[in-house]
């Protein structure tokens, strides 16, 4: 069990949620998604993003349209389907619960440790 692995596991869980969140705000091009996530200090590789988008699309949560770009090849712009919107809401709810839970546990745990330490000494 190494730290990297655990970190990536943790990150992985929230990736879909974050991506759907970005797309929910409006049509998005994959590299824009990456840029936005990078700004939030959440680094993701395109090689990770594309399969994820495809899977979501195949699950009917996302749809896309081709947009001609100047110079480069046409781009795929992704948007949320109704089903995807529902899915996002559920994820959002879950995230809230989870965040609260994690908050509570970690906070409590921290305090416990803080409180225990002096008594031990």
């Amino acid at each position, binding site marked *: 069990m190494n730290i990297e692995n655990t970190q*990536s596991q943790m*990150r*992985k*869980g929230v*990736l*879909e949620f974050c991506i759907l969140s970005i797309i929910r705000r409006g049509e998005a091009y*994959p*590299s824009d998604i990456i840029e936005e996530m990078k700004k939030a200090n959440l680094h*993701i*590789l*395109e*090689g*990770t993003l*594309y*399969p*994820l*988008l*495809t*899977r*979501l*699309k*195949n*699950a009917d949560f996302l749809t896309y349209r081709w947009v001609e*770009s100047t*110079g*480069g*090849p046409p*781009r*795929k712009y992704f948007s949320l389907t109704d089903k995807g919107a529902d899915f996002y809401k559920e994820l959002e709810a879950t995230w809230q619960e989870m965040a609260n839970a994690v908050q509570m546990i970690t906070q409590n745990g921290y305090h416990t440790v803080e409180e225990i330490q002096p008594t031990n000494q």
Partner: protein
Amino acid sequence: MKKVININFQGRVIPIEESAYEILQHYTDSLRKYFAKEEGRDEIINDIENRIAELFTEDLKKGSACITDQHVETVIKGIGRPEDFDSEGAAEAGATSGASGSSSTSYTAQEEPRGSLFRNENDKVLGGVCSGLAYYLKIDPAIVRVLFALVTLGGFGSGIPLYIILWIVLPAKGMQANMRRRLYRNPESKVIGGVASGISAYFNIPVWVPRVIFALPLILGVFHSIFRNVWFFGNFDGFPDFIFGGFGGTLFLIYVILWMVIPEARTASEKLEMRGEKIDLESIKNSVQEELQGVKGRAEKFGSEFGEKAKAWGEEVGQWGKDVSNQSAKVYSSEIGPAARRAGNGFAHAIGVLFKAFFLFIAGIIVFAIFIAFTAVLFSGLGYGVYDLKNYVLEGFWQNFLAFNTIVLLFGIPIIAAVVWIIRRMTGARSNNSYLGWTFGSLWTIGLISAVFLGAIITRQFKRVESVQEEIQLTNPSNGKLAVNVMPADGRFYSMIWFDEDNEHEKFPKLSADEDSMLINTIRVKVERSDDSGYHAYLLKFARANTPTEAEANAEKISFPVSQKDSVLYLPEGFAITKQNKFRNQQVMVVIEVPVGKQIRLDNRTDEFDWFTVSARYRGRERGLSIDSDDDWRRDYGYRTDVWYTMTATGMERTDKKSDDWNADENQDENNNENKGNNDGYRYKKDKEIKIDTVDIKLKGKDTTVNIRLNTMLDRKVQKESDEEESPVRKKGAYVYHMISIFDLMRIGK
């Protein structure tokens, strides 16, 4: 200095360095492998490639001349290598059991199943059997292939069924090459197939070493033929035979096998592999580590691609606990298409190489032979070549001009072109000059046209035939016996020795010492019954020309002085034609009339007389000149040489009452025929119809005689005489050795 290629990438033409292309290729391959199990694999790859194309376009827009290694590396870094991916397939997590780590199998397991034998799907010529065996034995596949080919060739094809059985029995599996260095043919530095160059790279020896070894039989062969006739080389008879017989042939065979069996190093990574810069599995692992630490090197790059795959597989398998075999099945089923295609390519490759090798070998020999023969015949300094003969046929400037064109252009150009081609082929030089081909082509066409015109002009000169009769003054021999013999012609004539040949028959035509006249011997002797009681003789002189008048004039010019001394009639051995009166198929027919009851004998020197007819045909399928040779005229006239005949009212009769057994003649030497006759009396009748459908030619050697029978279809049957047959006089041959060369056929034609 790097080679830049243009690729069509996602509908865009991208100029890219070849090495960068290799990296890209490996990268997309690794992605393909990584996403193999994924449902939307093609779409994912497509999206990623699209993105790469977009990034490349941006780079190019920024002013880069082409995509470099650096660009590709940057792009790959941005998109991520498979091992960098959060090996999630987040959505997939739900689909699978989620029993993370339930399987400890990682990709490394792929490398170790030495226990069982597989066919290698990834590296094969036909079915991957040899490659699989090599994997099992942990040796280079090329070695197994060579051994297999040798077993097949040496063991009467036993390798083929073995291969097919193994192909059927062994399961297919994709395996990585297990060699640090692999034997490739080197296309960058090749003479014929790049085999020697590849071997030198494999064994890390200078390239000239294998080349010299392969070329050794050729080099020695040249020296051998040069010094063959030098006396002191005669002592080494056993040695050259070994070299040129077994050794040279084997080396040639080995070269062809290697050419067929060893793949050509096409891609940059294969070239690296060839030189041993490829890294084996142990160091691939290291190089992956190095890669992660940002240490990059050209060689490591290629190694790491495999490393990526290894890691990716390991992670997938480890994390998602997918059944390995199930997964493999998927991967391999997806590979069946390309695999089948590769199999097809491999087979075609093998066949192609075989044909190529065979063709080159044969072409080389033919060109070399033609070249030697051509130069020898044309410019021979010792003998007299075709060039000397032309003056006896051609007249005027135009005919000579056309003949020159014909010889130099029609025959010379293809030889020069072939030599150029072979040399190019050997040096690997490529020509960007298409003018050469056009020049050769048009010169050859000129030669062809010249040949047609020349043919037409010459044919005209043989259009009409006329004959002139010339009486010979004969005094009747007192004893009632006339012998016919041959004497040398007036003046000094020398044989034109074309090919070393001791056959008396082939001495003609002869040239005079001043080379101004040529002696030919189209002469035949006919014996007829005299109407009165005296011997008579006359000549019928034939010649050809465009018009009857000219033909007659040509015939008149034939000088054939016959002389008589007591009871012997001397015929010249031939008659001369000069450069002025040209060769117009002059023929002399000597007719000797013998009174009934008197005798005649023809000396065997008259056997040397030749007879052939050149005639022009203007109708029918075979237009042009045709040359008919008739060596059987003596048989037509019904006599043998060196035999006394008595003229009777019905025809000639042997005075020794033996039969002219013409059938026995086929199996018999002329010298023996008198011992040989069946004692059943006279059988020959003059008016007996003899149909000529075969021409028998006898070649006499020291110990054996070979009969060649030509029938009208030019079907050739060679009978070697054996001692058991009815020729007891013949010496027992120690060994029978005969080579019937193409030149024999040429003479037969004459």
